[in-house]
């Protein structure tokens, strides 16, 4: 056989394998649809997304926006989605901050810091997240009741009803606008290469200024600018109450996630060529400046891609909230499935939502990675 005949045979084989794969997958999908129809008919369920308009008639633990027992499935699912994104973003920010701190400690010259960071990482990384969640939840719900709540300067209270903290007396929209202004301002200052310390000072000033304006304009007469939690009867009034479920999820995911991010950060710091650090030392720079101007900027390039994986992991980890009754999207979807029976549609919504969120994070990380890349490389 000559070369061309051999090539033709190989091509034919490739074609057969590929068409077999397509036919096989198509067969599986078609038969799945067929038996789904048979099984759903037997259960007497109508398929389609019509159920989204129906009202749910059940309640759940946590919501960022107004909710009611008569909410439609669509609204309830939206609330679940918002809860997942809220918890995910909050824990991503917190674990990234702690992770960078502990990762830096792990890389420090001082053995004490190194030991403490190692103990932290080895403790929280080697116990399943869900076990940590259940552990903290058991602790929190066994705390004393509101009357015997632990308090910090009569401003922050911790009891089995959750954590009560003082709150700025403004509406949610105003608060969101303020956060947005801060982010945009910080972004532009960073673009104009203002130093970090100046940015932080400016942010504090801006924050103070906005609080003054906002409280002056929107706080109803006769109320203070800050609402303090106060014990009235058997429960707390005023301030912001962080429910036990949310509190536990924040604690558990932050401890666990920051241990992982710390390892990522240390990995990046270790990768920085020794010569660069020695060059910094030769120039007489202090350890702090070497860290901020040489080590971290160099390390960030190795840190960013695995950091993105950790962020996606944290976003996915919010689903274990279902174990302690935090009403994230997974919780809402699984309750909806038991209540309405619309399994396929609800699972599709769940998957679609996670694909969307994780795709967005991946895009953001790509953008970050691109903008940090050394231009000449």
């Amino acid at each position, binding site marked *: 056989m000559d070369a061309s005949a051999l090539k033709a045979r190989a091509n034919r084989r490739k074609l057969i*394998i*590929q068409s077999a794969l397509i036919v096989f997958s198509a067969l599986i999908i078609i038969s799945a649809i067929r*038996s789904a129809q048979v099984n759903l008919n037997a259960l007497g369920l109508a398929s389609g997304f019509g159920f989204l308009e129906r009202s749910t008639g059940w309640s759940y633990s946590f919501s960022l926006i107004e909710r009611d027992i008569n909410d439609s499935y669509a609204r309830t699912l939206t609330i679940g989605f918002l809860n997942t994104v809220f918890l995910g973003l909050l824990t991503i920010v917190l674990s990234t901050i702690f992770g960078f701190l502990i990762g830096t400690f792990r890389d420090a010259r001082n053995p004490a810091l190194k030991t403490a960071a190692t103990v932290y990482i080895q403790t929280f990384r080697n*116990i399943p997240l869900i076990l940590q969640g259940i552990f903290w939840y058991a602790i929190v719900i066994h705390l004393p009741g509101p009357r015997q709540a632990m308090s910090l300067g009569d401003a922050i209270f911790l009891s089995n009803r959750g954590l009560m903290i003082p709150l700025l007396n403004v509406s949610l929209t105003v608060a969101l606008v303020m956060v947005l202004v801060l982010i945009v301002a910080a972004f532009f200052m960073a673009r104009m290469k203002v130093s970090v310390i100046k940015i932080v000072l400016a942010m504090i000033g801006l924050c103070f200024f906005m609080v003054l304006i906002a409280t002056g304009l929107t706080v109803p007469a006769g109320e203070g600018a800050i609402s303090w939690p106060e014990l009235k009867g058997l429960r707390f009034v005023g301030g912001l109450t962080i429910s036990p479920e949310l509190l536990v999820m924040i604690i558990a995911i932050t401890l666990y996630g920051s241990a992982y991010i710390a390892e990522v950060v240390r990995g990046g710091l270790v990768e920085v060529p020794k010569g660069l650090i020695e060059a910094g030392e030769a120039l007489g720079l202090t350890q702090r400046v070497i860290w901020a101007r040489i080590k971290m900027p160099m390390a960030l390039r190795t840190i960013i891609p695995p950091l993105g994986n950790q962020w996606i992991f944290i976003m996915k980890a919010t689903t274990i909230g279902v174990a302690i009754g935090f009403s994230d999207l997974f919780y809402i979807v699984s309750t909806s499935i038991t209540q309405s029976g619309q399994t396929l549609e609800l699972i599709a919504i769940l998957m679609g939502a996670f694909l969307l969120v994780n795709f967005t994070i991946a895009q953001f990380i790509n953008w970050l990675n691109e903008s940090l890349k050394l231009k000449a490389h």
Partner: protein
Amino acid sequence: MADAVVSKKFDWQLFRRRSFASPMDTVITVIVFSGLAWLVWQALNWGILNAVWSADDVEQCGHGGACWSVIDARHRLILFGLYPYEEHWRSTLACLSIIATVVISCFPWTWTTKRLSTIWIAGFAIYYLLMEGSLLGLPQVTTDQWGGLALTLFLFSSVVLIGMPMGLGLALMRRSEMPVVRGFASLVIDLIRSLPLLTTLFTAAVVIPILLPSWLEGDKIWRVIIAFGLFFACYQAEVLRGGFQAIPKGQFEAGKALGLTYWQILGRIVLPQVFRHALPATVNNVVVTFKETAIVIIIGFFDILASANAAFGTGAWAPYYIEVLAFVAAIYWIFLFGLGQYGEYLKRRMNVAER
């Protein structure tokens, strides 16, 4: 030679010099170490010095120390779940066979495809035969009665056993020259990897029965294991992809020039090197899988976490939830810390080999 480089001796001189390098360092050292010492002291105080080890009744517990009597009283439930009491020796032996399998496969001597697969299949078969029992002429115990640590180890070992070949298959498909095959593998891998594990398992437990005709449904536990195996496989495929990328293309070409077939090149030249490169990451993936088995409590399996909840869930032992959860956490911690340190050791060993 490698061991000499890997095991670094503790340098007391350097430790002291760095601890007190500057006044700032001295302050940090004193504060942090006294904080740690305080934590250790508290833990010792609670866990050992003030603890009650075997009280006959609950009344003796609760004087500022741990009440390990709850473990004494409930350890069988935590370790074996609902498994028949008089058959617990089988469950113990079965667990030991899985642990032995994991430990044996940590030795470099076993790192050939043939030996590793023999060991894992044998270990798993011993586990299954002992637990199920009917083939050995023992009383039959069906999977719905398995529980506790035994069930966790079962899920873990079957997931690794099923997932490993699946992962290799997916990795090879993703490297295929055929666009349809490649696209199919990429789609599956990326899809599963961007969804939470819980979604995958939940789908297997709840959605698949709708999509399958009733005669093909099978047990829930097998559906969940296969889904979990697929999840493991998708991560393993990415791990192996990293290994494949480390192999120079010339090696394939050299193999082709020698007249070897695709499978011969793969089996004799490429795969041994791929596995060697991917080893630390593979260990990491196995560690994560062991940790994630804890999640099956949510879809209704009586794993070690669920049996721990049951152990303090009723009556008299209810106040001692911390002890039970700490016990389970310690079991996980020992497994995971051990495997993790082993992974670190492999990584260093490989860095030395590459130098």
